[in-house]
């Protein structure tokens, strides 16, 4: 007798009818959008305010580089002492005072290493922003370098003429063209897939665990398993909760995009102004002379990805990876009596997950086919996340198949192990089991 569909149906319906679930489903995108809008609005607010910086240049040859910008306005003081300048700036509502000393004697023993140098100080009432300080540093450094070169007889035009802009055209041996933009697109897709899986496991794995604990605390469990096999109940729970999760994710996606459009129309907020590290990367990639062809390149990059492979692999790795972890969550739920007792067992689950996201985040970006990324894309507990991040860069099919086989093998093993723990655990009340006891349960 197969009760699986019945159990799945009950799990799904009770989950989606649950008030907290409904509120979460509809409120989360609203809250997210509200927060996002706020951040966008605030960063715009920050950007539009022009900062004024006062400059006192005793060398007299550097001040010329400080020309007003959209965000910064420079006031150049002349013929005042540092003490006076400080007093002046403190009185005005100036952001700060940049003090540049006169040229120090050329340092160095031989002619070769002698160069001009200055002392630079920044006085302000509050700690200045890091970006402003590093911006000022670069400006002064550039100017000094230029002057030092001039001292050696190299003029500015020569330097300008010597500059070359290289854009490497990438092509693989089969003649497929790739580009930096392509890499960024791949990174975004891979990262999104891996991160999605990570979030999904955390949110819905916990939900499964709670629902197992609920069955234990309400003591209905013995009634249920006198009718169905524990493994059926466990699988039913996992699948039912997953379907509820997919429903929630779907609603979030739709609601999120609709709200995003609405919010940007109403509040006139440009969401591209919110700088995320990915966007910075993209912006960097876009800084090439053929900027007008950008969009075309991105579209090309998108279609140049192994799309069919990507979709199939996404589904397979997502499902097996999620099932692997959710069976562990179910086993934990069965082993304990209440949520506070779960902490001790959560660590071994969370650790590999976080490791996977970090490995994915750092090594895949650096080198998608390097040793670290490759090894981690075969280890079953990290492979779903890492492999999903690697696939857009083109992973040989044999690697994907092998990794998937290892993953499925592990997944069958953990389901078996979890169902053993589950079978014994759901009837155990009272004390929190130790790892040693869990091991014993598996052997029963």
């Amino acid at each position, binding site marked *: *007798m197969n*009760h699986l569909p*019945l*159990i799945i149906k*009950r799990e799904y319906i*009770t989950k989606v009818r*649950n008030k907290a679930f409904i509120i979460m489903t509809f409120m989360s995108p609203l809250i997210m959008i509200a927060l996002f809008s706020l951040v966008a609005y605030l960063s715009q607010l920050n950007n539009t305010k022009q900062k004024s910086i006062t400059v006192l240049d005793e060398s007299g040859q550097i001040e010329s580089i400080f020309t007003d910008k959209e965000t910064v306005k420079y006031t150049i003081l002349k013929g005042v002492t540092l003490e006076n300048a400080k007093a002046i700036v403190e009185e005005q509502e100036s952001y700060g005072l940049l003090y540049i000393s006169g040229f120090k004697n050329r340092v160095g023993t031989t002619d070769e290493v002698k160069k001009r140098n200055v002392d630079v100080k920044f006085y302000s009432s509050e700690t200045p922003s890091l970006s402003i300080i590093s911006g000022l540093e670069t400006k002064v450094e550039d100017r000094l370098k230029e002057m030092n070169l001039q001292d050696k007889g190299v003029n500015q035009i020569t330097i300008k003429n010597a500059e070359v802009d290289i854009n490497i055209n990438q092509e693989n041996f089969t003649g497929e063209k790739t580009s930096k933009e392509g890499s960024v697109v791949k990174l975004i897709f891979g990262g999104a897939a891996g991160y999605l899986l990570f979030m999904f496991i955390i949110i819905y794995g916990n939900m499964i665990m709670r629902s197992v604990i*609920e*069955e234990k605390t*309400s*003591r*209905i469990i*013995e*009634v*249920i*398993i*006198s*009718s*169905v*096999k524990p493994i059926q109940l466990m699988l039913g729970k996992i699948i039912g909760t997953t379907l509820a999760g997919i429903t929630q994710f779907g609603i979030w996606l739709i609601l999120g995009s609709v709200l995003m459009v609405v919010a940007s129309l109403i509040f006139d907020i440009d969401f591209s102004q919110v700088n995320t590290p990915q966007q910075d990367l993209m912006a960097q990639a876009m800084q090439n002379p053929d900027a007008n062809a950008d969009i075309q390149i991105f579209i090309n990059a998108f279609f140049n990805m192994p799309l069919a492979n990507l979709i199939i692999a996404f589904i397979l790795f997502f499902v097996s990876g999620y099932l692997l972890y959710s069976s562990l969550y179910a086993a934990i739920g069965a082993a304990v009596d209440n949520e506070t007792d779960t902490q001790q067992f959560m660590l071994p689950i969370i650790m590999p997950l976080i490791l996977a996201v970090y490995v994915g985040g750092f090594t895949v970006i650096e080198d998608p086919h390097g040793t670290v990324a490759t090894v981690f894309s075969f280890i079953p507990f990290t492979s779903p996340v890492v492999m999903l991040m690697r696939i857009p860069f083109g992973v040989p099919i044999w690697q994907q198949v092998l990794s998937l086989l290892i993953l499925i093998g592990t997944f069958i093993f953990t389901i078996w192990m979890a169902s053993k723990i589950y079978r014994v655990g759901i*009837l155990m*009340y009272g004390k929190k089991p130790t790892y040693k006891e869990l091991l*014993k349960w598996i052997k*029963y």
Partner: protein
Amino acid sequence: MNNLLEAQSVSKKFGDFTALNNVSISVEKGSIFGLLGPNGAGKTTLIRIINQITMPDKGQVLLDGEPLQRHHIQNIGYLPEERGLYKTMKVGEQALYLAQLKGLDKAEAKKRLHEWFERLEIGDWWNKKIQELSKGMAQKIQFVVTVLHQPKLLIFDEPFSGFDPINADIIKNEILRLREDGATVIFSTHRMESVEELCDHIALIHKSNKILDGNLNAIKRQYKSNTFEVGITTDNASELQRSLSEKFIVSPAEFKTLNNELKLNVKLSEKESANQLLNYLTTKGEVSHFLEVIPSASDIFIQAVKNN
């Protein structure tokens, strides 16, 4: 085959702990079988084995002559001691779900549920959530769900806990009615008065072993000590007590009488008969009370456990 259920030399170990050691029971069709024992004796393990929740290490269980298989769960209704329902689910939906898990189709389950709800006068609970009901109310639902699929074998583990006397009585009568309709009942409890009232047959499990098994009356005959309660009005009470003590083992007794009689428990040896005692007594005074002491289920329980 007159036995609905037979457990044959069932053993179960959990690690180093032996939960059941070579236990056999036979439950006759249409009987109410009391499965008794102190806490932790192994009753629940045996019941779980019958329900295929746990598998025995050794031995087998036959239902209707067939070794237990998965499909047999439809023929068993089990009310566990550790019981409960989904708190946030509505009564009707929940009952339907549990009935469907037992293999009933939805329409049939609905029909039967409405019949039951009407009989127990709980029809208006259908759309309430379990958490809105009292414990006793939830227990009623649980009882209905247990018996709804009309199983051949009903297993009740402490069925009366959580009920007030009125509702306990209703449930008791429902159990008797189900037996009349042909069900066989295994009944596990610590409440000995309900064992007296309901059980035809008992088995006592103590420290993983079965130490007593048989028809309740036969066991009582086996455990009776040939003792009689005697109430007699006599002129010389102390003289009578002294002469009785020479012949029999005598101890003071407590029972209600109208007059100020001499009240004694008199234990006869196996050779002596009740008539001999009665004849002797009639020569000494006016006998107003003469009753064989029948051991209660509780006495038997305590004695059997102590002897082991």
